[in-house]
């Protein structure tokens, strides 16, 4: 069969993948560098009978998709730093009420309005801890269009599997870059639908009573079962409770359902890692430059490898520890002041061998930048 090959922007790949995953409903508010996602979906969703809403702000957008998800839709919103900041309270609501949804943050430079049209990876920790209270979250990223497609489909699958918001943390370079995409055929990537209750009408359904395996089957809101959903701590009926046992049980459930599954959720790629003495750890657009310099150094016989992270949270410490075990130097390549650096230091046996190669001036970190930093780290000067 002839392959369906496209040459498109990263934001458009995200749209294609979301539709492939079964997206029904999108609500958003325009912001650079994510706006193309809204623009494309405003056309593509109604074409398939889905719905696109442009809301009055990002708070409204996330709230609207949460409402839509409850009714049984697969949902998405897309934004960038300032909008992602506005979404934090509703994000916590989706975590607390366990409502599947996917949120794209095409990162730009911050804080504040920052650097709207330039690249950054400054929202890594915000994605982890932006909303208040103890919680866990799934955050995925990608460095090229084929991966971006796969990881976007994955985001929907994980959201439905774990009944949780999943954040796709892209960046301006990936979002705006044009590159080849081979469109996967229908059925080529597995799609996950949420677990729905088998209880029929008239039978008492407890929305927050876990099955034996810990999962909570959903019932499409507005359908045959009536129940309550709240952002307050709640019991198995979804009714508010401040009973210490209920509160403790729910916090543990919300955190454990994700943290205990880090092995299933972890996504990564490795290049030239077998005998690597210097390991680059990178993700997103920075990983493109890291891959380039890795190949370049290998061609000169240097034992350099690249570990590319595609899931940032829950942080795949076990992977980083294992892959960096025999490295003499570990260099984290990212476009912030060292947000994943700290996690890598925590993960490895010897934090002293971990260094940072970064850029925070709104420009993409280049292979030459990384090369210079590597030379300095190895005591070779520039």
């Amino acid at each position: 069969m002839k392959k369906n090959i496209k040459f498109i922007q990263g934001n458009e790949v995200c749209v294609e993948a979301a539709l492939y995953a079964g997206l029904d409903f999108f609500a958003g508010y325009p912001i650079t560098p994510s706006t193309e996602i809204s623009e494309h979906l405003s056309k593509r969703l109604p074409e398939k009978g889905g719905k696109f809403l442009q809301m009055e702000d990002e708070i409204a957008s996330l709230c609207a998709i949460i409402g839509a998800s409850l009714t049984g839709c697969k949902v998405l919103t897309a934004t960038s730093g300032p909008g992602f900041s506005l979404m934090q309270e509703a994000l916590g609501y989706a975590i607390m009420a366990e409502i599947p949804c996917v949120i794209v943050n095409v990162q730009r430079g911050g804080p504040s309005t920052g650097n709207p049209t330039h690249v950054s990876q400054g929202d890594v920790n915000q994605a982890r801890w932006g909303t208040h209270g103890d919680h866990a979250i799934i955050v995925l990223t990608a460095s090229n269009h084929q991966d971006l497609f796969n990881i976007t489909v994955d985001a929907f699958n994980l959201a439905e599997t774990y009944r949780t918001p999943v954040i796709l943390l892209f960046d301006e370079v990936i979002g705006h870059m044009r590159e080849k995409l081979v469109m996967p055929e229908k059925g080529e990537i597995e799609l996950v639908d949420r677990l729905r209750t088998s209880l029929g009408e008239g039978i008492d359904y407890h929305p927050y009573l876990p099955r034996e395996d810990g999962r909570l089957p959903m019932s499409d809101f507005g359908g045959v079962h009536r129940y309550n959903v709240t952002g307050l701590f709640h019991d198995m009926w979804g009714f508010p409770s401040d009973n210490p046992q209920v509160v403790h049980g729910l916090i543990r459930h919300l955190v454990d359902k994700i943290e205990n599954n880090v092995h299933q959720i972890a996504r990564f790629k490795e290049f030239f890692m077998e005998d690597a003495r210097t390991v680059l750890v990178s993700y997103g657009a920075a990983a493109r430059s890291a891959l380039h310099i890795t190949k370049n150094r290998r061609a000169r016989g240097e034992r350099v490898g690249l570990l590319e992270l595609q899931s940032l949270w829950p942080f795949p410490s076990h992977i980083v520890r294992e892959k960096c075990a025999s490295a003499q130097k570990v260099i984290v390549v990212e476009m912030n002041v060292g947000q994943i650096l700290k996690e890598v230091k925590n993960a490895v046996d010897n934090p002293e061998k971990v260094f940072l190669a970064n850029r925070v001036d709104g420009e993409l970190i280049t292979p030459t930048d990384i090369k210079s930093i590597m030379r300095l780290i190895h005591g070779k000067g520039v």
Partner: protein
Amino acid sequence: MAVKDYIRKRFFPHIWCPGCGHGIVLNNLLRAIEKLKLKKNEIVMTSGIGCSSRISGYVDFHTLHTIHGRALCFATGVKMNRPELKLIVPMGDGDALAIGGNHFIHAARRNIDITAIIMNNRIYGMTGGQFSPLSGYGTKGTTAPFMNIDHGFDVVELSKAAGATFVARTSTYHVKQMVDILADAIDHKGFSVVEIMSQCPTYFGRKNKLGGATDMMTFYKDHTTPVGSKEKKANPELIERGIFVHEDLPEYCNEYDKVIEMAKASLK
């Protein structure tokens, strides 16, 4: 179905103070639903945060208790995908018009088929008596110990200007009118707003020396007049109650169906 069949008895007693107007709204809202002979499965109630917003816990409908000020946004997401359901969104005055003011005007502008009920007790009850955008100039609250210098919104004028296609006002004293108005509002296809002047004796009453709940309700009896009445001309201070706007204009979910048709046609 009797009113008592619409409530979740298991979750009583409710959290409201003695004399609070919110319970009166609950009672008469259920009477309005009974009057319309709606089934429990046909109704979604979405609410935000506040004493008023707790109303959603007590009713045996599909209930979505959300975050402060954003109930209309969640309701929009539900309604777009289940347009056959009746969406009822009770809100406090702070919830609807301070933190939620932006969402309120935009929901009205879209004319999406949702019934917004503003339970206006002129104060932030849940957080202990701070002034709200409806307290009005010269009132007192725990954050206006001397005098509130913020002017209030006129909910009716605001809703009209924002594009709501059904706008009404009543009070906790006028319970028969409340039932009729709420039934009309729920029945209306489009964005409907019902302002119910309510009382918080615990904070607004006490801070402003207005007496107990009955005194506050008597105030509504004595200081309101049916919309368009002669008394209003003689005494402009009177607050009008009744239905101010009731018009049929294209509803948002129906409009979006047109977009879908156009999008599908464009593929052919």
